[in-house]
């Protein structure tokens, strides 16, 4: 793997993501194209088409790009940090915390107040669960403590989400919560994109700053420390960055599973398994995969649109199983 190959891989994935991004803007339900309408003779048709482009399609495509990149990159980083190929961004509990925060907004009927209340609740949920993770696991937690605390938080917040569902006063709230939890990019506004982007960018930058530390961790924590990397700093940046970025993503789109798990796996052999080199192509690959999945859910002409989170899990779960089987075969 020389530098030129690495450049080509990134370029290829970037082109793929860009292609799906453009397609995401122009392709509608049942594969209908917007291009014709943009050049329509009729003034009203034309302005309507532009409105759809700007207010409906653009935020949707931007979310695909940003959330996909976030999930791919944080997944790759957490797998490097925990030195475990089965790690994914949801592991540290921030995404289920974000989901709970958003669900509580629906539960108390605040969602109708402003389109921003749900993402706000989500980010608050993510931050609170990060705080709890920090309290549970201490300043320089062992990998096992980190995973156990994350699992405990996930389980607890999921239970609270279920409680909110079962106690919800109106069937309408239940319906809203369930649909939101399934994860989707539909009917999101530019306001929501603008709200979540700074968190995602900050989180992704924090996580990216650990790249060389993740490489050093390939040889274990002691060796990484002897190479001059402060363990607590690497863990804190990777975990807080992931929590911020994924929490913000979930708070706008709902839970979208398996992208953060699957994409780093597909990319890893291409970059010679090196954790630092995995980050960028995982981000690009995550964006491409999520944009592609979001195009897939638009294909059915009639009936309700399948939810994005359902589709990614439908594709991701069998892959996960294959991964486990392969790991078992390779184990001595």
């Amino acid at each position, binding site marked *: 793997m020389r530098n030129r190959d690495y450049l080509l891989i990134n370029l290829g994935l970037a082109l793929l993501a860009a292609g799906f991004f453009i397609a995401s803007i122009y392709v509608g339900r049942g594969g209908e194209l917007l291009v014709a309408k943009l050049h329509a003779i009729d003034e009203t048709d034309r302005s309507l088409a532009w409105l759809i482009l700007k207010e409906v399609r653009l935020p949707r495509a931007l979310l695909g790009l940003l959330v996909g990149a976030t999930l791919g990159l944080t997944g790759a980083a957490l797998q490097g940090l925990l030195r475990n190929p089965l790690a994914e961004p949801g592991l540290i509990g921030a995404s289920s915390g974000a989901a709970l925060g958003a669900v509580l907004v629906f539960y108390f009927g605040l969602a109708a107040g402003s389109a921003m209340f749900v993402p706000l609740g989500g980010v608050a949920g993510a931050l609170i669960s990060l705080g709890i993770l920090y309290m549970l696991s201490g300043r320089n937690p062992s990998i096992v403590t980190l995973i156990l605390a994350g699992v405990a938080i996930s389980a607890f917040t999921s239970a609270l989400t279920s409680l909110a569902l079962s106690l919800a006063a109106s069937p309408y709230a239940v319906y809203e919560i369930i649909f939101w939890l399934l994860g989707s990019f539909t009917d999101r506004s530019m306001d929501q994109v603008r709200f979540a982007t700074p968190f995602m960018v900050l989180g992704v930058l924090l996580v990216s700053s650990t790249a060389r530390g993740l490489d050093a961790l390939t*040889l274990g924590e*002691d060796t990484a420390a002897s190479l001059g990397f402060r363990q607590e700093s690497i863990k804190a940046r990777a975990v807080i960055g992931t929590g911020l970025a994924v929490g913000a993503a979930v708070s706008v789109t709902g839970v979208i599973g398996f992208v953060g798990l699957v994409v780093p796996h597909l990319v890893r052999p291409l970059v010679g398994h090196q954790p630092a080199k995995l980050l960028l192509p995982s981000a690009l690959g995550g964006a491409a995969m999520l944009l592609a999945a979001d195009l897939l859910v638009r294909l059915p002409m009639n009936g309700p649109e399948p939810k994005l989170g359902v589709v990614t899990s439908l594709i991701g779960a069998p892959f996960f199983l294959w991964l486990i089987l392969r790991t078992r075969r390779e184990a001595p």
Partner: protein
Amino acid sequence: MELRVENLRASLGGARVLRGPSFDARGPSFIGLVGPNGAGKTTLIRAVANLIPFEGNISLDGMDVGAIEPRARARKIAYLAQGAESHWPLSVERIVALGRLPHLEPFRAPVPSDEVAIERAMELADVTRFRDRDVLTLSGGERARALLARALAVEAELLLVDEPVASLDPYHQLGVMEVLRTYVDQGRMVIAVLHDLSLAARYCDRLILLDEGQIRADGAPAEVLTAETLRSVYRVEALIGGEGRSFHVMPVKRVE
């Protein structure tokens, strides 16, 4: 290069492991750290590498090791853990390149001097032939040499190695000891935790015999490894013979 260890005390899980060993060492020198299991050898070199909290003083050229900025310290002191392993199937060359991490400027790619150091380390450890092989598919002996090359690539003045020849066959044991000897002869210091007393005696300039967290003997190998110290510290009767490169110790019987 001068290493000074003074009245070192450290505990593991509440039990006191080091009870105040002190020694000075001036490079270039190949120092073997020997002693029975649980004597505190690993704890001692982990303290020197600043990987565990300790009381007492450890200084390098008059500077407290704890006070040196971590990246600068990582350029001065390299550490090879016992049974070090790679968690990902990286190529040998990439593993060795990790040794240059303390030398890299933030956000900058490796420079030619890093490439040279990587080549030199691979050459010294004799792993250049399989530089593109996945490190996890190598045999135990080859893998040990690849990971040793990673530590050599740091080009630190002080290299700490914990049982570098454990689980290796005689051919690879001699190979690793020769590599370490060459590294010292290039003007550096190596402190190696060793259990094979014959190997330690033949390749090291000086042995430090540790027992129950204290230094029991310190000096030239033949002075340290006497029938008396082997009996009192290791609790074995041993046959001792030869001189210089053919010095050997063969334990034959436990002392009741």
